[in-house]
């Protein structure tokens, strides 16, 4: 039964547009879905390699801007008369570009900051996000700065009678669902492969991993590329859903949202970001319904983050898995998460 459960879940989600008529609710599901994809990509780094990317929103935003710019076309003039221009391209191609560009940025950041271990990757990624935001604000000719990129086209596939347009919410919801399932399968394949085992090994004990011949830095960079590419795709989805992008997409608070989704759900588990994402996709709506100011919402997020680390350090999913395993009195290897369950103590 356990094997079919995820597919049942997907089927249930796929049926949502058929019976859900409340478009506001569908809107929440779509934005939650986009953030879950981003959180899954963050989980690959934070959960499986143990590297905290605090600039994840940079990859997300770069994906969003790339897709917007390629689908709108642009013309930029550098120094003296050297002009780069691009005619508007179809949206599917733009989304593909965003994956590639975000992945490449991931490569550059990973290659640079994994020269040194420790807190460096965190700091480099967080300042990188800030710099990208500055570029988005200041390079008005290219990004329109705070005026934002408007009228971004929606995704349409096929032509003529077979044209599918993803303007309407139900169709877009299915698109997000497909993207989410693809990302999930990609990540689960990856972490269960040789590369994934190498990542987990280096998270647990880097020196030991090196001693058995794992090229640690290489795997860290690979993980960053894939993680950034998936985040970039989530950003592209965001762009073609809202159809407007401004520099606020790079706000640190979005990274915090992704981190808290992963940590609460359970880092280093495949289901963790989904569980955390659903919780923190809906929590803001409840808070808004209670007429709570956004500042208070963020204060609650901050306090929750601290409390989760204290009382549920592994996150929700491993806690449930352990509870299930202890009820059966038989340690069920499949139900346990891929993470080590030891609390780090010296």
């Amino acid at each position, binding site marked *: 039964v356990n094997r079919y459960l995820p597919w049942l879940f997907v089927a249930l989600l796929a049926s949502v547009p058929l019976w859900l008529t409340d478009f506001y609710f569908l809107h929440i599901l779509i934005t939650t879905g986009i953030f879950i994809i981003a959180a899954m990509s963050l989980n690959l780094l*934070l959960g499986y390699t*143990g590297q*905290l990317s*605090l600039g994840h929103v940079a990859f997300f935003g770069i994906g969003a801007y790339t897709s917007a710019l390629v689908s709108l076309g642009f013309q930029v003039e550098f120094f003296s008369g050297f002009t780069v221009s691009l005619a508007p391209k179809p949206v599917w191609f733009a989304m593909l570009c965003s994956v590639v560009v975000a992945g490449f940025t991931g490569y550059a950041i990973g290659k*640079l*900051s*994994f*020269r*040194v*271990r*420790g*807190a*460096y990757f*965190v*700091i*480099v990624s*967080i*300042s*990188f996000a*800030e*710099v990208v935001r*500055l*570029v988005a*604000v*200041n390079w008005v000719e290219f990004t329109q700065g705070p005026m934002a990129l408007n009228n971004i086209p929606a995704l349409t596939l096929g032509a003529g009678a077979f044209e599918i347009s993803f303007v309407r919410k139900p169709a877009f919801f299915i698109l997000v669902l497909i993207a989410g399932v693809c990302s999930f399968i990609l990540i689960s394949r990856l972490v269960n492969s040789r590369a994934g085992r190498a990542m987990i090994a280096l998270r647990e004990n*880097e020196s030991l991993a090196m001693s058995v011949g794992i090229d*640690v*830095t290489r795997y860290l960079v690979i993980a960053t590329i894939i993680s950034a590419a998936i985040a970039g795709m989530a950003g592209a989805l965001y762009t073609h859903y809202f159809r407007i992008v401004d520099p606020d997409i790079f706000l*640190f*608070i979005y990274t*915090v949202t992704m*981190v808290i989704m992963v*940590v609460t759900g359970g880092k280093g588990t495949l289901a963790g970001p989904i569980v955390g994402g659903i919780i923190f996709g809906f929590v803001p709506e409840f808070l808004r319904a209670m007429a709570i*100011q956004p*500042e*208070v919402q*963020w*204060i609650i*997020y*901050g*306090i*929750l*983050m*601290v409390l989760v*680390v*204290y009382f549920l*350090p592994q996150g929700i999913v491993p806690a449930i898995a352990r509870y299930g395993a202890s009820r059966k009195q038989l340690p069920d290897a499949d139900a346990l998460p891929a993470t080590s369950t030891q609390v*780090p*103590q*010296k």
Partner: protein
Amino acid sequence: LDQLAQHLLNATILGGTYALLGIGLTLIFGIMRVVNFTHGELYAFGAYCMYALVMLLGVNFFLALPMAIVLGVALGAIIEMLLLSRLRGADIDTTMLVMIGAWIAMQNTEQLVWSGVAHSINNPFPAEPLILGPLSVSWNRVYVVVVALLLIAATYYLVNRTRLGKAMRATFQDRQTAALMGIRIDRIHTATFALGSGLAAAAGALLGPIFFVAPTMGDLAAAKAFAIVILGGLGSITGATLGGFILAFVEELGAGYISSGYRDAMGFLLIILILLVKPTGLFARKERVG
């Protein structure tokens, strides 16, 4: 050339406060292995203390500074005892998550209490700047750099010449051995965090009257402090001091000759450069390079 000299002078003055920020952060990282994300908020806290004391309560300008520092030290000690003391020996990621949570909570509390409007603080200095040949500098800035340098000197003295400093350095070198020698690691941690927080609050209280006081000021300060610390090497006081001045020079010259919009991006460029050339920073103790 006069313009260049003016830029260099401005950079020197800015560098003093940057160094204060960097030293606080690097001490905390070096001794406690904690990436202190609340650093920027403590900086903002210092500035707000200054604002509340001078503008709302009418306290003397010069008296308000030590009071702001003391409040910063107290807040730092509270954060340490409340949040970090039970995470001793936890890995660096765990403490990082806690500190990020604290950062978000603190910043939004500030926003809630003070609203998003920027405030300015009056200073008692004469309005005419000090003229040195072709250069001019406001009296307030002179005061800032003098106090900043005094505070840096005091920190050096504290760390290198006092018993507490010796205990700190011992903890820095080897926590276990230091504990075996009878040093109370808990107290050292609290003291270190309080000291670092006090320095951040001092930087905020010094710069508050020069710039505006706004809830988001902490983020920028934190970003700069991180750049300074990577530049100097995580854990090195001398590195942080020099890093602070280097960053100030690069920012000032970059803003003056390239583009002022990218002033705050210079720190990142420096980080990239240092990671390419000497990844461990200018003055680091050994950090694993991979």
